[in-house]
């Protein structure tokens, strides 16, 4: 049987394919359409990157809206007073864009996020106090901030965190894990001056340490599993 090629059909099919793929690639900007389970494309990638930046981990940033991305969107919505539906619609994307936008000076010039110290602090909180109550996370961040103003410690966040043997999370590499949303918020809060530790310089988990020095320090209080000391 002879195959009859109809030119107008070929044109139609090629046109259809082109319009579908191009609409997906060229005109996709975050916020143009509702994103949900099964969405794909660069705008999903942008959405994922912003979620990760704010501490909502979702595995790999791959441009595919899967179950992990949905869970991250849900958590984000829950934390930010939005309706929890797992869909990235106008409001959710607006809030995401607001929180990840750059800081500006008075005349509106972008000056970057200026969050270098907060970020490292959040990594340390995440690694040292994951699973602790939120107050305990703020307290861990506050301990590092308190060390800066104590004469016996180094004077920058990085110097304090990376001081040899100061934090076990540096020795076992957990410091390199991306910080969670609550760790980021706790770090931010401590940088802004909150100190639920009561001026502590050390903290330790009594079930895990036998270090004589740390047990000899005057204890201030216990929050979650950590004892905070002078």
């Amino acid at each position, binding site marked *: 049987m002879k195959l009859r090629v109809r030119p107008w059909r070929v044109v139609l099919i090629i046109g259809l394919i082109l319009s579908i793929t191009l609409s997906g690639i060229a005109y996709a900007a975050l916020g143009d359409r509702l994103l949900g389970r099964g969405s794909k494309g660069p705008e999903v990638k942008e959405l994922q990157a912003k979620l990760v930046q704010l501490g909502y981990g979702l595995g790999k940033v791959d441009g595919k809206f899967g179950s992990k991305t949905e869970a991250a969107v849900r958590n984000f919505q*829950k*934390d*930010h*007073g*939005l*309706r*929890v539906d797992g869909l990235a619609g106008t409001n959710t994307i607006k*809030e995401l864009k*607001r*929180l*990840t*936008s750059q*800081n*500006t*000076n*008075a*005349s509106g*010039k972008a*000056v970057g996020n*200026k969050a270098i110290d907060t970020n490292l602090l959040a990594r340390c909180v995440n690694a040292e106090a994951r699973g602790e*109550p*939120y*107050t305990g996370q703020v307290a861990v961040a506050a301990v590092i901030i308190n060390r800066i*103003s*104590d*004469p*016996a*410690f*180094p*004077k*920058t966040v990085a*110097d*304090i965190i*990376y*001081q*040899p*043997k*100061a934090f076990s999370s540096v020795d076992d590499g957990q410091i390199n894990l991306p910080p969670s949303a609550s760790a980021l*918020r706790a770090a931010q809060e401590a940088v*802004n*001056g*909150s*100190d*639920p530790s*009561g*001026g502590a*310089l050390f903290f330790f988990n009594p079930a895990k340490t036998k*270090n004589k*020095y*740390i047990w000899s320090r*005057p*204890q*201030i*209080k*216990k929050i979650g599993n950590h004892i905070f000391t*002078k």
Partner: protein
Amino acid sequence: MHRKFWIGALAVALLISLGWGYNEYRLAGEYRLAAENNNHRALTDFASHLNQLETDMAKGDVASNPTQKILYLSQVSSKSDSALKDFAQIPSDQAGLSYVGEFLTQSGDFARTLTQRIAGGGTISAEEEKTLRDMHERLLPVNQKVQDIMNRMDTENLVWIDPKPSLRQRLGFGGTQIAEAAADGSEAPSKSVRSGLDQLDASLQKLPPFSYTGEFATRVVSKPLGLPSGNVTRGQAQGVVRDFLNKVGYTNTTPEFAGESQGPLGGYMWKYENADLEVSRQGGVVTYYRDQRSIDPRTMSIEDATSRAKSILKALGWQLVLTSSEDYGSYVQFDAVVEENGVRIYPDKVRLMIALDNGHLIGLDAAPYYAFHHTRTFPAKITMNQAVRKLRANFKILESRLTVIAKTGNQEIYCYEFRGQYQGEEYLLYLNASTGAEEKIQRIIKTPRGEYLQ
């Protein structure tokens, strides 16, 4: 046939594992060398910065002309900062309070304070000159000791940290523990760089602290100034908590006791559902409250939250003005301070968080208020017009008021605050209300959550 095959396969496997092992060994060696080089660099830098610090301190002491004095003293502060940074990189087996670190911080801090004073046209008192000389005297043996460690590093193959006790020692068959001796500060020759530094630390610990005013003058927190007098019992504290919870929207509560806390603002900790609270022992006031309940979708605007914050403050018995807000999406965080006769007293601060679903209070941090609040007497001041004339030309004033601001080292200054613009940037400038001297500059940054001061 079969046997030959197996022998061959095993031989290949052996060769592969040998190759792999060698490669790993070589890599480990490279990493060890890289780490060793870094450690050496830190120690050498430390020694060399200490050395320069010692020289500059001597020169700063002898210099008589103000510009020379500023030069050497500012070098003292920058060299001690560098030395501190190097010191923090030297390997150790545990971190704790370091007296070497404290000494370096204080000498740098003291030199900075003096530099600023001389740069502002001031002079150094005889007592301060003596403190500077004392610091130099104390630095000399420190410097010597570190150089000694450097020398022994080359001659005696000093290791970085004391080796862990061997199996034989752990089982109790002889051998002394060097670390114990080092912790005591006894002068047995150290076997490692770290134990040498620990001995140095112990010897500095025995010396009396310096007395001077500066940013890092002390590690002791002063007594809280704002707590009401008289102590409360645990039972009374529970009553305070119930009363507080009632005012923030929880009726008929039975808060659980969650332990006691020590320190200047110490007291009783409580837990109710998802909320944590702390009531001070002295005065029996709520110093900390944090509700971690899950927050429903937002129904309120920032303006609604602001008026809620004001009414909650009133209900809790505070007379404060709101100074800033940060929008976290599900809640807004406000800072509120005391305003007395038009003077904003920034150290007396209360932070509160208002949930945007129902406008209830979900967070309160009153520790700064209770630590610093007291009745203040204000010195004579220059007029607002005189202060305005001290500002630089082209600084466009947007707001101005009298304030009390905190300066590091628990000092307070009575100031004029000017919020204004200069060259497209917005600043807060603080001019000393009695002298007109510029005390502090803060730059205002607009973040996605609100304004931020740098």
